[in-house]
């Protein structure tokens, strides 16, 4: 069973925020989804941690040759807030 505390933790990881009501509803729903996903627990796999990863030979990797990219205007063209050619956010206190 998922707890409210876990849901809150997932909100933190996801940078989302639910209202109390939403969180309660979500909890019920999420239990069902996790139960659904948990079907895999019963399956037996030999060589448990052997996941398939496609590979590439080093020789076929990208050559180290520069190509033109975007202009500054293009880079920040969709920025919700910009200044001096940069994306802008409220000052971060470190």
């Amino acid at each position, binding site marked *: 069973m998922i707890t409210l505390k876990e849901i809150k933790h997932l909100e933190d990881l996801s940078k989302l*925020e639910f209202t109390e009501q939403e969180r309660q509803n979500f909890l019920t729903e999420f239990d069902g989804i996790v139960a659904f996903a*948990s079907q895999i627990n019963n399956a037996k796999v030999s060589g448990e941690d052997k996941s398939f990863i496609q590979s590439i030979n080093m020789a076929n990797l990208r050559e180290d040759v520069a190509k033109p990219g975007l202009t500054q205007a293009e880079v920040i063209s969709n920025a919700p807030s910009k200044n001096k050619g940069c994306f802008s956010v409220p000052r*971060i206190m470190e």
Partner: protein
Amino acid sequence: MLELGIKEIREKILKHELTSEQITKAYIDEIKNSKLNAVVEVFADALTKAREMDKKIASGFSGKLAGVPIIIKDNILVKGKHASAGSRMLENYIAEYTSTVAQKMLNEGAVLFARANMDEFAMGSGTETSYYGKTFNPFDITRSPGGSSGGSAASVGGNLCAAALGTDTGGSIRQPASYCGAVGIKPTYGRVSRYGVIAFASSLDQVGPITKSVEDNAILLEVLSGRDENDETSDITPVANYTAFLNKDIRGMKIGVISSVEKMMKGLDCEAYYNKMKQFLTKHGAQLVPVEVENMELALPVYYIIAPAEAASNLARYDGVKYTFRDKDARNLEEIYRKSRTQGFGKEVKRRIMLGNYVLSSGYFDAYYNKARSLQAKLRADMLKAFNNCDVILMPSTKGEAFKIGAKVNPVDAYMEDMFTVSANITGVPAISVPFCMGKNNMPVGMQFLAPHFEEGRLYRVADFVEKHKEGK
């Protein structure tokens, strides 16, 4: 004229029986009158582009898609055009660059004139989660067109375009194609570049054509396919001449059938259509071969672990800082993140981000993500083994006919929509849905074939035969 496909439109244009402008305008008018809500936006310069193409054709250009009006899903970028992936998050986003698939179509003369509605970030099976409203099925507007490429499939099924592009992560091309009476293919993972396509789950996403005929599908996939230096996961395997697989018989073809999949069909409408297909295939000289793929029923939960995990990470970049919606009341960075994402994403997207972060988080990673990846490896190995004994595998595309809009209340119910399609994504093999018959509610039903990696040609061979010889033809 509206029901014409890629091949006929191109031929008519090259023969000067039709102009790109005429056909593009006809589609635009049809979209304006359409109640399907299949299209999010007709691009303002659509007719200008069509006219330019007509001029180019007049001066001798005869690309494979010369003058053909094609709709792209709202997650495919064209420089200077909006692309929002059905989300409020990207409502005002204008692409800074062009996707490889769009560029390839433009190079062949396509007129990319509109973008199609979709489930938000391709998360959904009914085109019901879009910020731009639900899309309706062209055969019955009380029903869903399927999803997530529901706008693309409805546009093809509803004759709002010559053809459309969709993306398929767990069935998002094949399921709506089945529901809208269209041909849809999910190519081999790595066959088509994903560069410039807004990602849902990177290891599963593939772009593919949704078309009115198998031949159109083959023509369009040939244009889209090939190695792209901007996508490391795109494959170097040479692209086959897909149209060469058309107009052949299926005599002697070995069609794999999986008993565990047949078990999954029990009690579903698709069982009857599937059996009908088996009869059809044997009648025309194909041979049904039982093959076994263990844990097929787990492909769906495996998918609902891997896809959300990748999505949670892929969608983290939509943070209110660079190019997305930003909540105006956010006073500091943390609020920009939280408020923008909370308001910018819809419910299903949030659900999957939460699920993805759950299966990746410390303490759960091994039990969910790693276990799912191991099962995926096993499924893939089994699938490859199955293809030692058959040329293609037959499966239903969908549980039955298109469901009624609003019928899927429970998320897990909605997830079940992908039960027959996800295995192709999980194992990376190509799969096609081809219209086969009308169901009990007189809605179109498609059937699905799967082939070994990079053997799309086999799919076109069998699908083309089905299209040409099925009942009523």
